[in-house]
């Protein structure tokens, strides 16, 4: 794993921010979010060329081979700009699960194309429960001669409708196994799910005795899944704090500019004190996200604890900040044209994406020895 010094990491972050300010403006987001695919192919290509899509793919497979710290930093910018893209699906979940499974033949075939963005991949893990836990897996696999047959339903599959390849985690009689699935294969049905957050793309995937190729795994499959989820949670936390910071910034700016009763509304304690409280939430979330990234990067024994903490602290801070932001703006933010609701939608959905805050608090307490 390559690790950047903090200045180089800032430079990477800056370069993503510059791209976002061109390619993921509010106008662009509003256009892209109404398309079927939900991402801009040209921007996606650029992200691939910049090495952002392949951030987690190692150099021998054509990626940048970076780690959680760099990913978290990049995701902050993506989150701040509400970037519509399959980055989390393909560049994080699928790439990392393939990394962790370590099927060399498969990785040689897939990872270079994932890194460039040519191939969009995604992971099928949870079913309708939306629980990213062993209990949540609702696809089962049975061996049929040399090959395997999948039965069941995966859901909340990120950008499933845009995926060329699906990595499916399924239950077998001997625990969990992973499979490579072509979504256009017979007996596989991918259906887009309508989403409240229009910058998000989710799909369900039904398997009705669908043939699939098992992925060889160099470690127990659930261990690989767990490590993948750890990284995904760090990435999501980064995305959330990026959004949180952005919303706080434009809310404070509005409070400085808006005048009512002959005064800037930010001079009223009602607004000022809400802003102060949000700053505490925001800074705490940023600390949590970056600390989680750093613990994961160092394989610290505190990684479990830190990642669970970031998972609920960042989700909750994002929801609270976007919710309070609308209240602080007043009527203007009750209009579709104002960006505040786009962030509120993103915040509410991201807070459920890999399990809700109660789930992560429970994990946190367990990790703390409780």
């Amino acid at each position, binding site marked *: 794993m390559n690790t950047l010094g903090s200045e180089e990491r800032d430079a990477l972050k800056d370069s993503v921010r510059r791209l976002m300010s061109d390619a993921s403006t509010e106008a662009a987001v509003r256009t892209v979010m109404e398309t079927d695919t939900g991402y801009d192919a040209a921007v996606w290509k650029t992200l691939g060329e910049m090495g952002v899509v392949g951030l987690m793919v190692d150099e021998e497979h054509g990626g940048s081979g970076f780690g959680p710290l760099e990913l978290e930093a990049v995701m902050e910018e993506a989150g701040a700009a509400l970037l519509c893209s399959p980055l989390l699906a393909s560049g994080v979940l699928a790439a990392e699960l393939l990394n962790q499974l370590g099927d060399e033949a498969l990785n040689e075939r897939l990872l270079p194309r994932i890194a460039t963005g040519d191939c969009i991949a995604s992971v099928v893990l949870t079913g309708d429960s939306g629980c990213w836990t062993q209990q949540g897996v609702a696809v089962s696999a049975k061996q049929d001669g040399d090959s395997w047959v999948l039965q069941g339903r995966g859901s909340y599959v990120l950008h499933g409708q845009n995926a060329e390849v699906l990595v499916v985690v399924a239950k077998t009689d001997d625990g969990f196994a992973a499979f490579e699935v072509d979504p256009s294969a017979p007996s596989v049905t991918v259906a887009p*799910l*309508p989403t409240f*957050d229009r910058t998000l793309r989710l799909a369900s995937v039904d398997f009705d005795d669908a043939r699939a190729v098992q992925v060889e795994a160099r470690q127990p499959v659930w261990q690989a899944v767990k490590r993948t989820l750890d990284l995904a949670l760090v990435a999501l936390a980064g995305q959330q704090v990026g959004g949180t910071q952005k919303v706080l910034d434009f809310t404070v700016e509005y409070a400085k500019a808006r005048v009512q*009763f002959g*005064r800037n509304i930010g001079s009223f304690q009602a607004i000022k004190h809400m802003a102060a409280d949000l700053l505490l939430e925001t800074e705490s979330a940023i600390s949590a996200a970056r600390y989680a990234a750093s613990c994961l990067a160092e394989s610290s024994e505190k990684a479990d604890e830190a990642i669970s903490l970031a998972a609920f602290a960042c989700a909750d801070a994002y929801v609270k900040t976007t919710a309070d932001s609308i209240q602080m703006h007043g*009527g203007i933010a*009750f209009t579709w044209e104002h960006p505040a609701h786009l962030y509120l939608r993103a915040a*509410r959905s991201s807070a*459920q994406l890999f399990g809700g805050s109660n789930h992560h608090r429970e994990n946190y307490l367990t990790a703390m020895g409780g």
Partner: protein
Amino acid sequence: MTTSVNDETLREEVRQWLSENWAREIADELESEAPTHYTASPALRSWLGKVFDARWSAPRWPEEWFGRGLSNDQAKIVEREFAKVKAPGTGQDRVNLWANTLLAQGQPGLKEKLVGPLLKSEVNMCLLYSEPGAGSDLAGIRTRADLQGDEYIVNGQKVWTSGATTADYGMLIARTDWDVPKHDGISFFFCPMKQPGVEVRPLRQITDESHFNEVFLSNAVVPAENLLGKPGSGWRVLNTALAYERSVMGETARGSRGGTGLGLGAVTEAQPLIALAREAGRLDEPHLRQQVAQTISYRRLNALNTARAKADLAQGTSSSIMSLGKLAMSRILHEEARLRTEILGAESMLEGEDYPQAVDANFLSLNAYFTSIGGGTDQIQRNIIGERVLGLPKEPEVDKTIAFRDVKTGVGSG
């Protein structure tokens, strides 16, 4: 002059008239046509015309204004008989915002022209109050009305207007004097809406609905006789109208798609959240149970407050509790939406007809701001409660005594 009438005679007269005029078919027709909030259906208009002709529309008003000059108690007798058969149209001397405001403040010509039609819902109305730059600070409006000959020429922009597309007139506040303090330079008009100077654009809400409009006024023409009250007295007229609106609206809960009523007796009020948790198979989770109980209690406590306030009023004691309802409702709606989201979990990411519970949770989460922002934000509401109910002193008001043209303005709108 009003002829006095015996209660029993009056009751008999109403009953008689209703039995002759109110027919099952009319009720069915009214129901089938589902009139919107802002325009009356043909059937309703036809019925209201009959009520009007029989002088039941505004029984408290004098005969000159289509009424019978009845006392409040006798008017209640009329209302009760109408209510018994569920016939609409009477008691408008109590509930018709437009007609009441006009009758109290309007000039003779306009009153003669419109009071009757308003009682018959032959003209449609809307409110032209809020502006992008005047939300919480309504007295900070910048729409101007300049007198030229016997007309006012109006320029400016209004927002959060309901029913603007169908309205014949809008109750408009505009600034007619910029050299006096903010509250003193405002005037109140009935502004004709069907004219080239008035452009109505729908306003898309965060819920992806459009219940409101923006109204652009560009050299819109308002006859001078459409001024209500005196020039510069508009803030007082407005506050009378607002207080009136509150007193009428106070009793009715703010509706919301999927929301539940405020009815006191209803144990069923609890059912949506309990049912949702049960349906999700989560009613046995202790952490959720605590939250469901707490959230239900907010709505229940508000209903108990409202009932207590009404009892106080009935006893002649004025109650300060009423003013708490809007703030309470804001918490109720936000908390219910939050809890629905928590109960649903991952499903709340979805929408569309296959996921009605998610649609509800998400809609309610967004629409809760209608209550916590609309009609005075929670923050303004806390000011009002603190100052008017608890008697706490007001904040220093920096713009209260200076000429409006010198008042600081900001950027942004809404």
